[in-house]
């Protein structure tokens, strides 16, 4: 799938922008602070309903305005689609496909992208929540239905935590314990589905990440992903290197996960009531990244961490290309080339040239390997400057 046209209104520093883009590589060049990243951020938002830079939506709406609009013309299998999302301040967002209203969370069914940016180093070095977000975002792109499961799980978790807190405040009453059992059922049913899907995703990522890593680095450092599950007694809130690993010989069997989840809840009941918060479940899980058998977090160099994050994203794109109904995801590389040495730049250029469409932002044109410079869009203080216009200025 490719984007043929991107149109923004009141998005970040753009009052309005209209960019025609081509298949293959598209390069957005401009000095820092001019609005290159804003363009690709908008594209990323269409498929993930979130920004890679901020957690809330408000910063994406241009100052003084009440809503921002992202519009993209998409082309897939000979069919044109117009995808639109309106981000509203203080009201729920709206989305349209070919002018017909859809729920915003259905947008990933029509457009999938994989974005890589310096912020992604946080997936490697940050909190477990960053890694869960990475896995869940990929899950939703691969199986859009799971967006609903994840949202329901969050809601059950909030209900259950509120109940635990009020039980702690008032002293545990009989009726509260009975309702707690009901929320346990929902937590286990939804949580086990998320855990099973994450385990399957982690296992599907193993081969593509090994391929991608060795392609980026030029050597096999045996990258691997190890699930860290709270239902097996692993506490991901502390930096405990001990990890009880899910025995893959049993497979990611749903019944086994459900039974383990239930047992863990029973075991933690006392401390959950004491602390007033749900201590086990999908919201407390993590995934450990290894290189040569050692955790990347804590052991790997800056360069290795970078390469791992990049390989994760390339592996994600590979998985989507294989499993998604949308064909190739659109690749977005935000300010990535400046961080890489000459050899890695060349290798990355080769890898991304296999994809239908790639968006690259850079402050300096010289950082970009020449084969990626076919379609260049210059950005200057929130305006898109056509190459032809620049030439005209140069001549005048």
């Amino acid at each position, binding site marked *: 799938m490719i984007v043929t046209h991107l149109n923004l209104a009141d998005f970040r520093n753009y009052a309005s922008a209209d960019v025609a883009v081509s298949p293959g590589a598209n390069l957005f060049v401009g000095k820092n602070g001019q609005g290159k990243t804003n363009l690709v951020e908008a594209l990323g938002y269409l498929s993930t309903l979130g920004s890679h830079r901020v957690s809330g939506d408000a910063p994406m709406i241009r100052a003084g305005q009440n809503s921002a609009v992202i519009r993209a013309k998409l082309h897939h299998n000979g069919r044109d689609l117009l995808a639109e999302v309106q981000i509203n301040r203080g009201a729920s967002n709206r989305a349209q496909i070919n002018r017909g209203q859809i729920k915003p969370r259905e947008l990933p069914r029509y457009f999938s992208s994989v974005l890589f940016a310096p912020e992604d180093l946080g997936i490697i070095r940050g909190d477990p929540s960053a890694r869960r977000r990475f896995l869940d975002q990929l899950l939703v792109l691969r199986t859009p239905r799971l967006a609903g499961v994840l949202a329901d799980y969050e809601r059950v978790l909030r*209900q259950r935590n509120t109940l635990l807190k*009020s039980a702690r405040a008032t002293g545990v009453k009989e009726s*509260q314990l009975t*309702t707690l059992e*009901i*929320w346990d059922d929902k937590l286990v049913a939804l949580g086990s589905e998320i855990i099973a899907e994450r385990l399957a995703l982690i296992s599907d990522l193993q081969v593509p990440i090994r391929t991608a890593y060795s392609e980026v680095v030029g050597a096999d450092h045996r990258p691997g992903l190890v699930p860290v599950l709270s239902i097996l007694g692993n506490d991901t809130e502390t930096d405990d290197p001990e990890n009880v690993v899910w025995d893959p010989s049993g497979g990611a069997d749903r019944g086994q996960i459900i039974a383990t989840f239930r047992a863990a809840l029973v075991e933690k009941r006392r401390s959950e009531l004491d602390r007033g918060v749900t201590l086990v479940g999908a919201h407390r899980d993590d995934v450990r990244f290894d290189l040569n058998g050692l955790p990347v977090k804590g052991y790997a160099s800056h360069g290795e961490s970078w390469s791992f994050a990049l390989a994760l994203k390339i592996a994600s794109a590979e998985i989507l290309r294989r499993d998604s109904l949308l064909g190739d995801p659109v690749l977005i590389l935000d300010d990535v080339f400046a961080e890489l040495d000459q050899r890695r730049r060349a290798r990355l250029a080769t890898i991304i040239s296999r994809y239908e469409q790639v968006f690259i932002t850079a402050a300096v044109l010289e950082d970009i390997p020449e084969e990626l410079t076919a379609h260049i869009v210059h950005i200057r203080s929130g305006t898109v400057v056509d190459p032809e216009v620049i030439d005209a200025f140069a001549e005048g």
Partner: protein
Amino acid sequence: MYEGIVQELIDEFGRLPGIGPKSAQRIAFHILQTESVDVARLSEILGQIRTRVHFCEICGNVAEQETCSICRDPRRNQTLICVVEEAKDVVAIERTREFRGLYHVLGGAISPIDGIGPDDLRIRQLMQRLADGTVVEVILATDPNLEGEATATYLSRLLTTLKVKVTRLASGLPVGGDLEYADEITLGRAFEGRTVIG
């Protein structure tokens, strides 16, 4: 901002569910231009509504007497009780004309976030109604969302101790809709609840 009482009226309308600032303003100005008898009638009803409306002592539905018209109607099937969250749900089910039994309005659903537990719902009253054994079937018609499902599960567990049949409304495909446009959750539920036809 408008002066004094006009702004006050707009603010009051704006507090109502589903009415934003613009609608509130439109309604307020509509009222300013309406015949004063019509306005008087509206204000009279508003003044009386809280004192005249009662909740049925038996089922919790809205009523103008101590019991509602459904509970007073001897032709209704006294062996069936349909449990709903709100009085609005009674009206919705009555429109179908399919159900001729009685109702029980819970007054909400279990939702710790909103501070609603089983003790805040009319569950004790339901158990009292079931005590004499007249009722043979309880139909759980709470909303098909997380809180409604939780409430239905809670009730079904509570009712297993009684000799009464407990059923839950089916959820699945909307009638007259297209299968291809159904979302996955609805379609998944429809598969789970499929029925044998031959």
